[in-house]
């Protein structure tokens, strides 16, 4: 039974730490990665200490990381999905297609993405023009490799 409780309890601790860390900084994904690393390391130590190197302890660790990935997927989907954004705006009272078109402006969406890329240090701007930072070249190269790998044209 302990084996089954451990991954769930570890996820609960991670989610709680993630919530608390929100008072300190904004970057939700980075915060979550930090919390998963801390709780994951503790879980590995506990599993090794109490159960040794067994399939059970490995399964506990795999289950925890899979649950953490699922949670990360859920909240990044809520943060960045276009569909989610539209649903929220409709719930906020923009229940008219023309109003939705006006408020949910694709220009605004692009501006927000550009702002986020600037905040992430991937691009820089002198107000009028945009340029890539060095680290964005690595990101871009990674994205192109993935596109090639998955066969996206």
């Amino acid at each position, binding site marked *: 039974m302990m084996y089954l409780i451990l991954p769930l309890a570890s996820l609960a601790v991670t989610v709680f730490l993630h919530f608390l860390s929100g008072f300190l900084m904004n970057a939700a994904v980075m915060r979550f990665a930090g919390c998963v690393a801390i709780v994951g390391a503790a879980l590995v130590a506990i599993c090794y200490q109490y159960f040794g190197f067994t399939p059970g302890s490995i399964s506990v660790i795999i289950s925890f990381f899979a649950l953490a*990935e699922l949670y990360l997927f859920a909240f990044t989907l809520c943060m960045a999905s276009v569909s989610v954004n539209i649903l929220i705006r409709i719930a906020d009272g923009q229940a008219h297609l023309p109003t939705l078109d006006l408020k949910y402006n694709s220009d605004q969406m692009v501006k927000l*993405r550009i702002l986020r890329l600037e905040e992430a240090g991937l691009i820089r701007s002198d107000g009028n023009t945009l340029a890539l930072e060095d680290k964005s070249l690595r990101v871009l190269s990674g994205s192109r490799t993935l596109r090639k790998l998955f066969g996206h044209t």
Partner: protein
Amino acid sequence: MPTDRNCCPSRDSPMQETMIDHLPDWIILIVSATWCLVHGTLCLTLRPTREAAIFGAHAASFLLFSLTAAIWTALTSSQFITMIGAVSLHGAYSLSFLELWSLSQGSYSFSILDMIDRCKTPKRIDVVREMAVIGQQKKDGRINALAGNGLIAIVGPDVTLTLKGKLAVAAIRSMYRLAHVRDPG
């Protein structure tokens, strides 16, 4: 040697745990890793380009493997947690694969970076104009998809949330609070 399937003997236990004791557990974990490896290689070789095809390939594989793992656990002395671990491994693999696939296919941010790289210090206004076209296409497609999934109802110019939509919004807002997301979207 009797084994309790949900009990885990400590290393201090008089029962010496050997690889042989846990053979069915090791087998299902190794099969899980191999299954993912073969599936991933097949996906990267066949390269399905449609979203439904790649999702279907992963969903079918996940269901088939879960069934295999359940039958293995029922027929052998393998522990329940090992089945959970093996299925989780497949789940983590599929989720990672699909996320990367989707990210590389149509990420807004990558498209913006790509455009800046192609045009070399483009004007902000030009990037906004070009990317807004993609944004408009995304939005139109999504509104129709939301209506198709029964989350919103469109009557003339009015859009309303259905019960399913209201439940979805409540879940999303709970997630914002839980993850402490300040500026979603």
